[in-house]
């Protein structure tokens, strides 16, 4: 027993060193640790890849122009799997001591990250998760969930209006994946608006585990819709559009920002179906702010056009930077803690490449939605500003 005691004491000391509380307000000059959780592999890999590219461009730019705030970015791959998000986020917070978490993309996944962040008392800023519940269900996801994108109640309403007013459709079929909060939420908002404007909606369900949508696509074709809403993500939407080549007889397809991926067109193949989706940003927008970012991105990444996820990643990194600057000014230049960053994010205002971002009391900016047509490439159709 006596022999054991010293080693026990040592163990306690080591444990205290490893898990000990971090003092509030770290000394100035330390980098702000930003934990980034994104789908870098799996189904939604292009979302992760583009977001990360955007974040890296922003970080390099910030490091060049303002050496007073240093950032340390740590990336964790959530593999596009819901069950991987929690552990990945926990690692970022506990092992890497992230002061703030940035991520993820799919709303259902960000919800998992938000639950972990709420327990740990760390704020989370999502670049691209649009489901309303993330910021409205405070008791579940906490007070410190922020985003730099609009939410589905806005996006879905705009889709409903676009379908009625521009496409002149009265009868819609909505394809919904019950396993994705994003898919359910977006379709519900679309239906609300579409029905209010005098249309009817028939809902059909699919699952993302399924690889074969041939029958579903036929069934939708048989319902003779005037517009088809694919409420979900590109790995499912692309093949559906491909299979719809014959069965949908040119009925236009609409979707949300989940379709905004460079993989959408290769998956959809050559088609004469008109595909429109709502998004945050499109590279063919002639707005100088957008074109400035497109040039930067093309220089950094071998001439590739940035998608919306890249632009949102860029804006998310800038939001963290602006918040850190604000927090440092308020706290005498000390490296900000998570709590201070969260306080600084409230009411933050800056102009990003996806538009002017004002983080209001509901922690969601009011922003313009861009309607994009996917025909060979992503073409700018129109930009609708919020009322």
């Amino acid at each position, binding site marked *: 027993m006596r022999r054991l005691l010293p080693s026990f004491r040592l163990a306690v000391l080591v444990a205290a060193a490893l898990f000990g509380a971090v003092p509030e307000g770290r000394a100035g000059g330390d980098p702000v640790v930003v934990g980034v959780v994104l789908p870098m592999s799996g189904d939604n890999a292009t979302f992760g890849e583009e977001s990360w590219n955007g974040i890296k461009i922003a970080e390099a730019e910030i490091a060049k122009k303002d050496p007073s705030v240093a950032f340390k970015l740590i990336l964790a791959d959530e593999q596009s799997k819901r069950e991987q998000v929690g552990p990945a986020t926990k690692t970022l917070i506990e092992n890497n001591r992230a002061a703030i978490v940035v991520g993820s993309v799919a709303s259902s996944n960000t919800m998992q990250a938000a639950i972990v962040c709420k327990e740990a008392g760390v704020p989370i800023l999502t670049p691209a998760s649009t489901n309303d519940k993330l910021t409205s269900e405070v008791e579940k996801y906490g007070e410190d969930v922020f985003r730099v994108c609009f939410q589905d109640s806005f996006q879905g309403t705009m889709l409903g209006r676009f379908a009625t007013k521009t496409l002149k459709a009265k009868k819609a079929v909505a394809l919904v994946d019950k396993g994705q909060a994003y898919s359910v939420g977006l379709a519900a908002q679309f239906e609300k608006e579409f029905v209010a404007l005098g249309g009817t909606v028939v809902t059909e369900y699919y699952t993302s585990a399924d690889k074969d949508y041939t029958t579903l696509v036929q069934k939708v074709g048989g*319902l003779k819709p005037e517009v088809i809403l694919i409420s979900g993500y590109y*790995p499912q939407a692309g093949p559906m559009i491909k299979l719809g080549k014959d069965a949908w007889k040119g009925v236009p397809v609409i979707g949300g920002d989940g379709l905004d991926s460079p993989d959408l067109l290769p998956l959809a193949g050559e088609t004469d179906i008109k595909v429109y989706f709502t998004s945050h940003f499109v590279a063919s927008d002639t707005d100088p702010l957008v074109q400035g970012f497109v040039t930067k991105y093309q220089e950094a990444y071998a001439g590739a056009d940035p998608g919306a996820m890249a632009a949102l990643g860029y804006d998310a990194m800038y939001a963290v930077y602006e918040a850190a600057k604000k927090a440092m000014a308020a706290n005498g230049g000390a490296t900000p803690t998570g709590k201070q960053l969260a306080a600084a994010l409230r009411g933050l205002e800056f102009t990003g490449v996806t538009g002017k971002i004002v983080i209001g009391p509901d922690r969601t900016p009011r922003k313009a939605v861009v309607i994009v047509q996917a025909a060979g*490439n992503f073409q700018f159709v129109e930009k609708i500003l919020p009322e």
Partner: protein
Amino acid sequence: MTLRLRNLARALPALALGYVVARMFAGDVGGDGTLLDYLAIGTAQGAIYAFVALGYTMVYGVIRLINFAHGEFFMVGAFAGYFVLRDAGIEKLAWPQPWPLVASYAVALVAGALAAALLALLAEALCYRPIRKAGRIAALLTAVGLSLLLQNLARQWPPIGPTQRPWPAPRLWAAAADVPSPADGNYYEIRTFKSPSGESVDREKLVVAKGQRLTPANLQRLEALPGPQVFRKGELSPALVDRSIVLMLGLSTLVLWFLVQRTKTGKAMRAVSEDHAAARLMGVNVNRVIAATFFLGAFLAGLGGVAFCAKYGQVDPLSGFMPGLKAFIAAVVGGIGSIPGAVVGGLFLGVSENLFAAYVSTEWKDALAFVLLVAVLLSKPTGLLGRPYREKI
């Protein structure tokens, strides 16, 4: 009387199948969501299940092993086809269209089938043969382990990776200088060889299409890219792939029947299936027969893998999982160990699944397969065409 009824019960589905296939080849199928459409979709889907089920059933017939790694042979075959289609450049052949397209698909099929078959040979020699005497449970566990191993190796191996990839559309060669006026309604595709972080990638990026952004500046930018190549996109329509699948299934079933019933190897296979020891005593090289069985089964799985992924347009390390599972169910439903059973089981599963999806619920489609399995096993424990089980006393 009962005999006639049974004949009728067999003849009717066969006639219906013949009718559906005939309409498929006549090009009457697709578009309106009629019963015929769903039957055709189900037949094509079922044909893929049948392809994979044949491998399950043959291996089971010979060594009483459910080879759970069979779905991974399917996936490896699909990836082999993917690489050939992406990199071999067969589509550049100076033949009149659409022959380069058809040739590249055919080469991809053969490459996929051979890759899967060689992998199966390797797996049999390295994993199954050494433990053949250790009993059926050990073999079953080895199969499950091998399945997980192959899936995860594929995830880790950089050329494959964990991320799902769009199936490469066969590209038709065109030099950048040949890109016509912006009014041309064709699709063009650019391959960039450097990824954002510098390593080479294969994600094809559509930069220019329908002429919309084909400005001189744009073209210059493309030409400045590291080794840009402009291709006209060619594509096999899903309907064409469907027909090829049904045709291949018909041919393979005939070839298999001939192999098993009319050749010496086939005779040896049947002998090994009856009794290993007796076959060996009669001078049959049991190891060779088992290896041949694995080879044939995986060859078909590889064909199925390429066709499946070409139809649905994507491939990833888990591509073989669901089709493998469904095919296993198809093999059991048809009567495991029986070659016609695998074909019947596959078609039965494919058709009923798609009819269910069409008229009841698309969401519960995958669950139906398992319900069918239970229902068939309850009423006919040896499957639709299985031989009744004889208790040896």
